[in-house]
Every structure is written in C-alpha cells, then in structure tokens.
C-alpha cells in the first residue's frame, strides 16, 4: 500500500504516517526506505493512544504546512 502511494506521482506528495502495532526494526527500516513520512507504533493503552493522536493532530494539522488539494 505504502509502496503504491509513493510510486504514484499524484499521490506521493500526501504525507503518509504509519500507525502500527509492529515495532519490528525490519518494518521500521522498510517503511522509511519506501518514504513513509513517519512511523509510529500504536500504544495498547487507551490514554497513551489518545495522547499520540493529539500529538499527530498538533504536529500535522496545526503546525505543519501541507500541500493544498487540487
């Protein structure tokens, strides 16, 4: 899926953040090789998960400049 997005000139400019239960080093390396914009592992605990979602919101949707939709 990530490889498809990042090979498509129309889609590759969309920030793609991996949110996964895997913490395997091989998955982390492969995702960054394929140009994932970031890799986050999903906390099992509910309040840690909520904190992470807030942090994604603040980082990507409040502070970052994103490309405009066409």
């Amino acid at each position, binding site marked *: 899926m990530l490889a498809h997005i990042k090979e498509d000139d129309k889609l590759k400019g969309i920030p793609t953040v991996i949110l996964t239960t895997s913490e395997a*080093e091989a998955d982390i390396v492969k995702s960054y090789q394929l140009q994932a914009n970031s890799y986050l592992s999903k906390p099992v605990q509910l309040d840690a998960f909520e904190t992470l979602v807030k942090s994604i919101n603040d980082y990507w949707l409040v502070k970052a400049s994103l490309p405009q939709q066409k």
Partner: protein
Amino acid sequence: MSLKSVKKLLLVEDNPIDIQRTQEAFRDINKAVELHVASDGGEAMAYLHREGIHADAPRPDIILLELNLPKMDGREVLAQIKKDDSLKMIPTIILANSEAEADIVKCYQLQANTYFSKPAQSEAFTSLIKSIHDFWLVKAKLPQQR
C-alpha cells in the same frame, strides 16, 4: 541517560540568528540532543557523505533543512538525500522561511518528511521546536543507526 539515547541532529541553516535560536530551544528541551550545524548545502552533503573534515561525523537521526542556502540550495540538498539509498531513510524536516505553495508541493513531492514555515516570533518558534522534538525524538520510531 545512556549514550545510546543521545540523539544527533543535523541543522542545515545559514542564518546565525536561526542557528542560535534552534540551539537554545534544544538546550532547554533536552540536553541529550547533539545538534550539528552545516551552514550551506555543500557542507551538508560533505557532512552526510563524511568527506574531508567531516570524516568522523555521526550519522544524524533527523535533519532540519532550510530551503534558501548559499552554494547548493535546500531543494537540491533534499533531492540528493532522497535519491541516495544510504541517506533517504533519515527523516528530513523542512524549516523554511518560504510559505510559497510551490515550495510546499515541491518538497513533499521530493519526499520531505514534513514542511514547516518558521515562525518569526520567538515563543512560536520554540513551541515548534518542542513539537518537532516530541514527535520525532519521543514518539516516532526511527530506524536504528548502522
């Protein structure tokens, strides 16, 4: 704090004021961050390829890159990092003075990991550095150094 947890950042920036405020912000947030500075694009590439005086340069965990730089500009530095198989995994975050839509689109096309425009106001700037620190050095999983 163990040596392993010391994070290494490469700041590519030519403006002394921005270098200083970035250094001060990181010093306040986390003393275990080692901030290396390259002041133009050519020096950044020499650092990353460990050429000349940079032979012993540590590989950075993340790169903070300004776009408007002397010698080789930031867009070219980004393009070179992202087409080099040994460097493309290093998260490269644009900290630009430009808010031009063309720059934002171009940098994401070149696979910048995030694009930020630098706030002029110092509190907002410090808050941005805190967010970058928290997101990349606390929450995100980074590829291990080789």
